[in-house]
């Protein structure tokens, strides 16, 4: 039997954080159906694990973590993506930095809608973890410490994954720009 305070706390979280949880799951899976399943599964798991929650903050943190895990599980289950680069793959920072700037073309630089669409497409380059870190830090604007808490990582690991994500996305966007100019 699940206690009423937990149900109430989860209902509040659904109202306040539901869109953000979905955003995280969507960024990781890049599939709206998988993302909604991940969020639903996360709430079901929270409801089934009534022990150990003391207050909304802990519950919120746990929900983010389980949503991320459910999203990754869903990705693996469906196996839709070609093998992704590993999270700990060596970073060729100088090589990535050689890509042309995505903002080199003034006309393109001013087209925010186009750049956002290209950014979404470029996210396929990242690992699921990098997408999650990137979403929480860059899109949601959470501080590094909060991203670390929500994903169960150390702050150094968050910065490392964020850096990889940023350099890869810049390189991908820049390469795309260079191809179009040819």
């Amino acid at each position, binding site marked *: 039997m*699940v206690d009423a305070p937990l149900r109430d706390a989860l209902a509040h979280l659904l109202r306040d954080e539901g869109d953000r949880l979905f955003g995280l799951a969507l960024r990781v899976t890049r599939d709206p159906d998988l993302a909604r399943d991940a969020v639903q599964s996360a709430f079901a798991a929270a409801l089934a694990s009534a022990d150990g929650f003391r207050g909304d903050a802990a519950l919120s943190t746990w929900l983010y973590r389980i949503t991320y895990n459910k999203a990754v599980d869903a990705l693996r289950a469906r196996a839709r993506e070609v093998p992704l680069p590993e999270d700990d793959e060596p970073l060729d*920072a100088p090589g990535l930095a050689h890509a042309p700037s995505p903002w080199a073309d003034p006309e393109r630089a001013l087209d925010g809608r186009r750049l956002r669409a290209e*950014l979404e497409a470029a996210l396929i380059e990242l690992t699921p973890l990098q997408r999650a870190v990137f979403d929480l830090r860059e899109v949601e604007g959470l501080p590094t410490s909060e991203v670390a808490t929500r994903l169960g990582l150390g702050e150094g690991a968050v910065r490392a994954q*964020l850096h990889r994500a940023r350099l890869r996305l810049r390189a991908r966007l820049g390469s795309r720009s260079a191809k179009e100019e040819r």
Partner: protein
Amino acid sequence: MNCEELLTRLTDYSEGAADADLCAAIERHLRECTNCEGVRADLERLSRLCRTCDPPRLPDDARADIERLLRGDPR
């Protein structure tokens, strides 16, 4: 500091995780190296671009399903 070192530490710098000596070394390099300064500026632009993305919304029917789950209603 050379370009390779700088390019591996840029996010530590922008996230405020670099100590004073490292910050000074990074800033000195950035003043002297237009390529690295260009990358730094691009990463800043990338962050700004992300802030303008429309946040996705949990679909209403998914929200309703979860509300039912939380109320303990049968489907």
